[in-house]
């Protein structure tokens, strides 16, 4: 991509999508940051049983995996990577990034008191494995809604826990298990934050989506996302097309052009479903898996626990005719 082209595109974007896009964009970035803090707590509350597993997990992961991020710094690096590749969104993002960073720093000390607000301020992209599974179990309901619920209850939990923690100090009664657990985590977090705090999360850069003309959507960082998921782009794209019930192609710059209008959120949803279905290991929830094809059946093998399972083939299913018959006939004739 040449610079001139970039500039052109940038302008086009601004013209096309205008202020509303800007507004949409900003809060999501902010949310992401805040949720980061939150996720950690929520895990502690939710996955008590899994604690050991998580710690093992941490040590097991190879350090340089780009998919899995440890803390805010690496996260930013990743985003920077992304920005450098997709220069067209660069300026917008950078500016906001700085603002967000500042905010986060200010917010950090007040972390514990702020929880009431947190459920509202989060970024969907950073989904935890539990949520993945929860979503899976719920069937594919309105994903955003269920997520909201999850987060809301989590916030309350944490609130309760922090309050309860002090409660038994002044009284005679015995402490309960949750209280002790909260205490352990509190101390652990105080003493060595890197251990209890930032857990490695499976994250993926958000899909860079913008519109081309009126009827096509460009999904710019497919190749990047596929690489991060360790999946063949063909497989991912096949899934996308099957799910969206549309078609498209890859252009010269390895971008995916999808017929039809889609928003980033929508593609995010579909990608999330792809990750649940084809990337995360059902046994240990690790995203460290590889997909191999043996005699027409895809097998997913987990790199961290070694389990293998077959995954269902991608089926397009019924496709209704959506364009005019005359247009179709014309296309067939040419």
């Amino acid at each position: 991509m040449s610079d001139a082209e970039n500039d052109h595109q940038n302008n086009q974007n601004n013209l096309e999508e205008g202020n509303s896009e800007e507004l949409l964009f900003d809060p999501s970035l902010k949310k992401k940051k805040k949720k980061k803090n939150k996720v950690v707590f929520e895990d502690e509350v939710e996955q008590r049983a899994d604690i050991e597993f998580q710690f093992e997990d941490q040590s097991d992961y190879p350090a340089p995996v780009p998919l899995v991020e440890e803390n805010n710094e690496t996260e930013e690096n990743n985003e920077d990577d992304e920005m450098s590749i997709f220069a067209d969104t660069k300026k917008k993002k950078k500016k906001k990034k700085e603002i967000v960073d500042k905010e986060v720093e200010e917010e950090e000390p007040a972390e514990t008191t702020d929880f009431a607000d947190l459920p509202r301020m989060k970024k969907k992209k950073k989904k935890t494995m539990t949520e993945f599974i929860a979503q899976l179990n719920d069937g594919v309901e309105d994903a955003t809604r269920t997520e909201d619920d999850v987060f809301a209850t989590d916030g309350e939990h944490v609130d309760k826990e922090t309050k309860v923690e002090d409660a038994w100090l002044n009284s005679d009664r015995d402490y309960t298990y949750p209280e002790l657990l909260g205490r352990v985590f509190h101390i652990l977090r105080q003493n060595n934050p890197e251990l209890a705090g930032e857990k490695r999360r499976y994250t993926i850069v958000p899909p860079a989506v913008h519109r081309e003309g009126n009827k096509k959507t460009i999904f710019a960082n497919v190749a990047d996302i596929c690489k991060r998921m360790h999946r063949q782009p063909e497989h991912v794209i096949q899934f996308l097309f099957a799910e969206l019930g549309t078609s498209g192609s890859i252009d010269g710059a390895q971008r995916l052009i999808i017929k039809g209008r889609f928003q980033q959120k929508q593609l995010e949803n579909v990608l999330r479903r792809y990750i649940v279905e084809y990337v995360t290991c059902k046994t240990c929830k690790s995203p460290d898996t590889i997909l191999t094809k043996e005699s027409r059946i895809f097998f997913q093998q987990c790199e961290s626990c070694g389990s293998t399972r077959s995954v269902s083939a991608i089926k397009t299913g019924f496709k209704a005719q959506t364009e005019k018959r005359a247009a179709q006939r014309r296309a067939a004739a040419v």
Partner: protein
Amino acid sequence: MSAIQNLNVYDPFADTGEEEAGQPQGYIHIRIQQRNGRKTLTTVQGLPGEYDQKKLLKAFKKEFACNGTLVQDEELGQVIQLQGDQRLKVQNFLSEEGIDKNIIKIHGF
């Protein structure tokens, strides 16, 4: 009667989870397709044979206040087509009518 007869009855090592995954044709797929503009089309595919699709379509149309049609497909049999995004409504309708929610699959964004 031998003492270990009950071993025949239940095999604890039998693969139970895989069998469900082995028959994906049992699923009811609810899909969405984009049409021109902001219009969409919902398709319901793979409804069990014991339901009269024509009557089901009629009920859908009345319930969701949309139009729809029954399409005959060579491979997939009868497919219900509805105008607009009726995916969640169809799912709710079907599960209220006693179809297991787990065999209903919603696709799309």
